[in-house]
């Protein structure tokens, strides 16, 4: 156990976490140069495209130190986004230290700070690493200053590194063995293992990633998942070395996997404790909580015949994503579908992309909503996360909506713009202070609903990419809310309805109408798009009729080209939804959620 180190890398988005992880793996000799390709740990296409890690991955790295001692270093890669902060916290609970990565050209960002606080909460050793020193824009001195001033860490201990060029990697390994304490725990004690992740394997079921805190686990052991109370027989244990490597046992201090005939990822809970079945007096490890979705959206197959196929895809998707919740739902406009719950907007987007790419589902998602509470006459409280179930306004005493505490870090020259943005999004209780010369931390209480649409995009735009953002959920607060209906050619499209603050209803309705006008193709007739609250029209836009669409010439050589064009258009049409006589493309439903490119 003295030669084991469990650590994680945390960083703000794009600060080079995955590149560094890949370098460590390469340095440890798990892959040769030929096999080495960028970002081994980010397996999913989406992860690679977005440059973020969605699923945790773990890898066990052998390392021989300069002084000749052999170590086992367990790298626990964590999801890099606020939506997955609970998973991050469980991964960190499995470590004794972290590498806190800071981009030498960007400096400390909101997530860097958030990560630091998380690490402090878990009492972890922190090794600051200044990455991307190869960049022409790298400013090592300034980054050191920020590490000292904004993070309160010793800048002298920061390791200089270029993950891209492979510089400083050995220094990092040495620092891990030196700065991060060996795990503690008693091998003789009864088993207690923390689940920090689980992945689905179609042959083996759930592959549970865990950290053994006490005791040991071997194939044949009967184990119990503490919070669920389910009992399973261990089939296999081992460690991750890019591929799974079987072991005879896992003991206290180690990080690895357990396969125990657990069918799906949803049959496990991240944060839960694994104990031996026979150990009736076992106590769980601290910190378990059930993650709850905060953003909701309904999905519908574009072609209503595909409902069964969508149900099947969701079931398969769910095998590997315990955080997703879903249940059947139906819409007058869109037919049968599912109401889904997500940890945040990124979780939602990742879900949507994967469902399309990996599961080949053409879907329409409705405008995301938070979970509102309405207190009705007589004191009854109802929760509504689907605008369709907005209660009869006559019965509503008052409405409550979830608030967050936003933390924004920006160069001070953007302060005015950020304030304007936040106030425009109903931000209150603002607080700001200089964390270093020229850099500010701005805090606001804001309704969650105001940030789930395009807040982060807008922030990035107005701060020219310098602003960083993080948030914590606060509580529910009273607000004056209304339901905004959208009508296309006189028909209410329930899937486009949103709940909005009364002051924001008109601009929001106008925005939706304008976006729909851009996205809905012209038809052979005029189309009216209207926004309404309680039957009163508050915004409108019009799509003029298409009255000419014909090619002048169609002779021998034009026919194939023309037909192919029609085939393409017909394919596009298949991705549209008929609402009355109007075909609404899937992109229109998506566009309603996105920010304008102003």
């Amino acid at each position, binding site marked *: 156990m003295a030669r084991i180190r469990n650590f994680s890398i945390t960083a703000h988005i794009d600060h080079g976490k995955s590149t560094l992880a890949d370098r460590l793996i390469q340095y440890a000799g798990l892959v040769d140069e030929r096999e080495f390709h960028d970002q081994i740990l980010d397996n999913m296409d989406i992860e690679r495209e977005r440059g973020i890690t969605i699923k945790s991955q773990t890898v066990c790295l052998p390392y021989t130190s300069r002084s000749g001692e052999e170590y086992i270093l367990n790298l626990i890669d964590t999801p890099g986004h606020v939506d997955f902060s609970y998973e991050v916290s469980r991964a960190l609970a499995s470590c004794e230290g972290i590498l806190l990565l800071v981009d030498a050209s960007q400096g400390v960002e909101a997530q860097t700070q958030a990560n630091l606080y998380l690490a402090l909460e878990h009492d972890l050793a922190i090794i600051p690493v200044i990455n991307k020193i190869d960049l022409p824009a790298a400013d090592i001195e300034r980054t050191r200053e920020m590490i000292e001033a904004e993070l309160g860490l010793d800048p002298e201990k920061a390791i200089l590194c270029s993950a891209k060029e492979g510089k400083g990697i050995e220094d990092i390994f040495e620092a891990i063995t030196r700065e991060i304490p060996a795990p503690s725990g008693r091998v003789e004690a009864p088993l207690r293992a923390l689940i920090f992740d689980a992945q689905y394997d179609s042959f083996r079921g759930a592959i549970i990633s865990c950290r053994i805190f006490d005791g040991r686990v071997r194939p044949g052991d009967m184990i119990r998942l503490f919070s669920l109370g389910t009992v399973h027989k261990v089939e296999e244990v081992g460690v991750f070395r890019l591929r799974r490597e079987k072991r005879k046992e896992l003991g206290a201090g180690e990080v690895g996997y357990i396969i125990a005939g657990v069918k799906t990822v949803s049959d496990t809970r991240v944060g839960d404790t694994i104990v031996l079945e026979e150990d009736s007096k076992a106590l769980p490890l601290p910190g378990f909580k059930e993650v709850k979705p905060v953003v909701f959206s309904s999905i519908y197959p574009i072609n209503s015949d595909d409902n069964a196929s969508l149900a099947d895809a969701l079931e398969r998707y769910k095998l590997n994503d315990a955080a997703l919740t879903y249940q059947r739902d139906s819409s007058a406009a869109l037919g049968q579908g599912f109401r889904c719950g997500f940890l945040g907007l990124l979780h939602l987007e990742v879900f949507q992309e994967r469902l399309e790419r990996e599961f080949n589902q053409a879907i329409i998602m409705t405008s995301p909503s938070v979970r509102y509470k309405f207190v009705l006459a007589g004191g009854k409280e109802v929760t509504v996360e689907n605008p369709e179930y907005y209660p009869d306004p006559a019965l509503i005493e008052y409405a409550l909506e979830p608030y967050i505490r936003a933390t924004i870090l920006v160069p001070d020259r953007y302060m005015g713009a950020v304030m304007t943005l936040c106030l425009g999004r109903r931000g209150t209780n603002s607080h700001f202070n200089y964390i270093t010369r020229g850099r500010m931390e701005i805090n606001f209480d804001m309704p969650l609903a105001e940030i789930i649409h395009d807040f982060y995009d807008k922030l990035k735009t107005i701060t020219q990419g310098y602003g960083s953002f993080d948030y914590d959920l606060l509580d529910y607060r009273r607000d004056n809310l209304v339901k905004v209906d959208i009508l296309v050619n006189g028909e209410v499209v329930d899937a486009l309805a949103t709940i909005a603050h009364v002051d924001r209803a008109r601009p929001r309705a106008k925005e939706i109408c304008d976006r729909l006008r851009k996205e809905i193709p012209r038809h052979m007739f005029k189309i009216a798009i209207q926004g309404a609250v309680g039957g009163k029209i508050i915004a409108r836009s019009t799509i003029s009729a298409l*009255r000419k669409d014909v090619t002048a*010439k*169609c002779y*021998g050589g034009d*026919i194939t080209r023309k037909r192919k064009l029609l085939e393409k258009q017909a394919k596009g049409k298949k991705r549209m939804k008929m609402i009355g006589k109007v075909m609404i493309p899937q992109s229109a439903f998506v566009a309603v959620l996105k920010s304008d490119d102003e």
Partner: protein
Amino acid sequence: MMNDIPAGLYVHVPFCRTKCPYCDFYSLTDLTTAAAFADDIRSEAELYRRDFREFDSLYLGGGTPSVLPAGKIARITGILRELFSLSESSEITIEVNPDDVTKDKLEEYKDAGFNRISVGVQSFVGGELEILGRRHDARRAERALQLIREEGFTNFGLDLIYGYQGQTRESWLFSLETALRFSPRHLSCYQLTLSDSTPLGGKRSLLRPVIFEEEKQRSFFLETSRLLTDRGYIHYEVSNYAREEKYIAVHNSRYWRHLPYLGLGPAAHSFRGGRRWWNLSSLRLYRESLREKKRPLRGEEELDRGRLLLEELMLGFRTREGVPLTLIREIGGGEEVLNGLLEEKLVVVNAGRAAPTREGFLLADKIPLRFNWGEKNGRGG
């Protein structure tokens, strides 16, 4: 392959004296090897003798067939008559540029059996010809038409282009009226289309004409159709008008009716029995292929039932003939779509066929999309 129905024969003459900047047909302005073109056609035609025998239309298009000496044209028709059988009543057309038209040439065309001439006039207004980058002037076009009439060609037609800035309603009506003075049996009135592959269409072209906005295009189209119909012309295809039924272009109608045709020459397209194939659009590669006694194909496609159906809709709704109701009923929900089109006055039903109205012509590219041609009714095909 079956070769019992007479087919149409097209020859693409890939030469022009100058390139019209809006045209995206394949042609070369280097005429040095044009003399050998008749031999190319012989070599290619020989490769099709097994599959095609009888034709009842011949069309020499391009390019500009009239840039070839008339003797060469006569050689080409001679070769084709030698290798294939061309029925007595065949429509035999040549496309000409007004600049090339001379009395002698026309006589030779007549001797070679041409009974139809299509003149690329485009406009009778000098400034417009300049915008379009045409080499002839308006007077020349009038003289050419005069000569054609004097030489006794009754069946002749001309092409006009409209719908771009610089042209006014008056100037367009002037071109139409000038054309009508010659009592052409056929008129093609094309709205200017710019493809990105042409000099005028290229995005960076400073010369790029500006196409009328939609409402103006519509009003020009509708006015043209009304005017020509009033003057006794049959508006039988989106851009085509004939003075009488018998002057409806026999050859071109094959394209819209899915009737078989064989295209010879670079970039020419052929069609028969659900198969379409097309030639290399490079004279050099075309010739290389012929030297090896290989058909100079660049591509081909077999049309399955769904694609044939789509093409029948797409082509049918471009013509006055329209689409047979039996075909529409084969499509899932076809009847319902038809009723909608009838209600919107985009089509009318006549003698078991659904034919586009004037407004229908204007939306001919949209109408097929209303049908779910992928979904068949009952047994389908």
